[in-house]
C-alpha cells in the first residue's frame, strides 16, 4: 500500500516486539499489575473490540466516517461501535485540527476515558498543526495528550487510518500505551509547571514537545 505511515515505535521495532516477553510493571491509578500471560489474554480480547470515541474535530473526520461506512467498513474488525460517551470508549481518534478553544475539552475527553486507553493522531493537523501555524490552532496534539500512533496525510485515506488502527491493535495486544502506565499527560505537566513557577499563568503554545515514551 502506498500510504506512508508513522508510528512512534517504528515498524521495525514493532515487529521485534513480538518476540520480547512482556516486561516491567504496568501501573494504573491505584495499583500495579505485573504482566503475566493473563495480560496477553486480556490484550488479545481487547484488541478485537476497540471502541473509539465518536468525536471528530475537522475535515479529517470525514475520512474517519468513510472508514465507518459500508465501503471501508471497520466493523469487520470490531471497531464500529463508536461510543458517544468517553466513559464507554477505549481510545480516541484525534481527527483534524484542534483549535486552542477546543484544547481543554480534548484533554478533558481524554482524561474521562477509562484506562487503558489509546490515542491515534489522524492527519497532519493533529500531528503538527499542518499549514495552520496561526493564532488559533494547537501545533500538534501531542503537546497536550500522549499519542500512540500518528497517521500522516491531509487527509489520510481511510486505508491509512485503518492501518493506523491495526497498529493500535498491535499495541493493545502488547498492553502498551503512549503514557506507558505512568499517566504522564503533557497538558497536566505543563499546567503544573506553569503553576509552580507562577511566571506566566497560561501554557504557552510552544510547550516543548514532551517525548512520548518509546516502547
Amino acid at each position, binding site marked *: 500500500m502506498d500510504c506512508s505511515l508513522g508510528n512512534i515505535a517504528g515498524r521495525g521495532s514493532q515487529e521485534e516486539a513480538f518476540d520480547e516477553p512482556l516486561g516491567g510493571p504496568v501501573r494504573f491509578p491505584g495499583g500495579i499489575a505485573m504482566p503475566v500471560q493473563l495480560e496477553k489474554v486480556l490484550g488479545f480480547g481487547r484488541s478485537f473490540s476497540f471502541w473509539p470515541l465518536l468525536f471528530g474535530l475537522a475535515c479529517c473526520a470525514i475520512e474517519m466516517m468513510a472508514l465507518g461506512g459500508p465501503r471501508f467498513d471497520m466493523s469487520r474488525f470490531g471497531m464500529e461501535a463508536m461510543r458517544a460517551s468517553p466513559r464507554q470508549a477505549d481510545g480516541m481518534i484525534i481527527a483534524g485540527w484542534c483549535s486552542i478553544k477546543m484544547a481543554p475539552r480534548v484533554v478533558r475527553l481524554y482524561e474521562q476515558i477509562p484506562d487503558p486507553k489509546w490515542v491515534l493522531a489522524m492527519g497532519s493537523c493533529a500531528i503538527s498543526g499542518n499549514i495552520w*501555524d*496561526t*493564532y488559533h490552532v494547537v501545533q500538534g496534539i501531542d503537546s*497536550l495528550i500522549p499519542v500512540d500512533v500518528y497517521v500522516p496525510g491531509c487527509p489520510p485515506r481511510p486505508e491509512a487510518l485503518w492501518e493506523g488502527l491495526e497498529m493500535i491493535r498491535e499495541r493493545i495486544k502488547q498492553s502498551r500505551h503512549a503514557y506507558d502506565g505512568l499517566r504522564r499527560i503533557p497538558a497536566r505537566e505543563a*499546567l503544573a509547571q506553569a503553576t509552580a513557577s507562577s511566571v506566566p*499563568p*497560561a501554557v*504557552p503554545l510552544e510547550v516543548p514537545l514532551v517525548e512520548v515514551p518509546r516502547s
Partner: protein
Amino acid sequence: MSAGGGAERPLPASLLAADRAVLDRFGARILERIEAFGELTYCVAPGDWTEVLSFLKDSPEGAFDQLDCLLGDHLPEREDRPLAVVVHLVSHAHGHRLRVKTALAEGQGLPTLTGLWPSAGFDEREAWEMFGILFEGHPDLRRLLTTDDFEGHPLRKDFPLQGTVGGRIRIDLRGKI
C-alpha cells in the same frame, strides 16, 4: 452604477418594488446603489444604519424577515474609514435578497441589530472579535471563536498571519481541565 457583464441580468420584480419604496423614503441618504449580477447593494451612513434596516424589515415591499449574515471587513487602503460592516438580508415572503453596507472609522461604533433580528447576536460577536467593531447595545458582546484572554483582532490585515504573535497566544488550561 453597474459592474460589467452582469448588468444584463435584471433584478426581480419584487426587489424593484422594494427598491422604489426605499428610494422614495430615503432618497439621497442611500449613498450608493450598486446593481450587479441580478443583485442589489446599498451603501448607507452609519447614522442611518438602524433606520434603513428596520424600514427594510417592516415595509411590505421589502419584508426582509431573515438576516442571512452580518460580517465585518478591514480595508486599510481606505484610510479615513478602514472598517466596513455588510449585512445580507433575505425575504421569505418575496424570495429576494439584498445587501447593505456601511463604512466606519477606526473606533466608531454601530448600533446593534439584535433588536430587529436576534440572529445578529452571534454575527456581531464575531465581527467585534475579529475586527474590533463595537456594536452598541449588544446584550452579550463576548469573544466567540477565540479564548476569552485573546488580545487583538485576528482578521485585520495588520494581524500577523503566522506564529504566536510574540508568544501572546497561549493555551490557558487553568480551571478548564
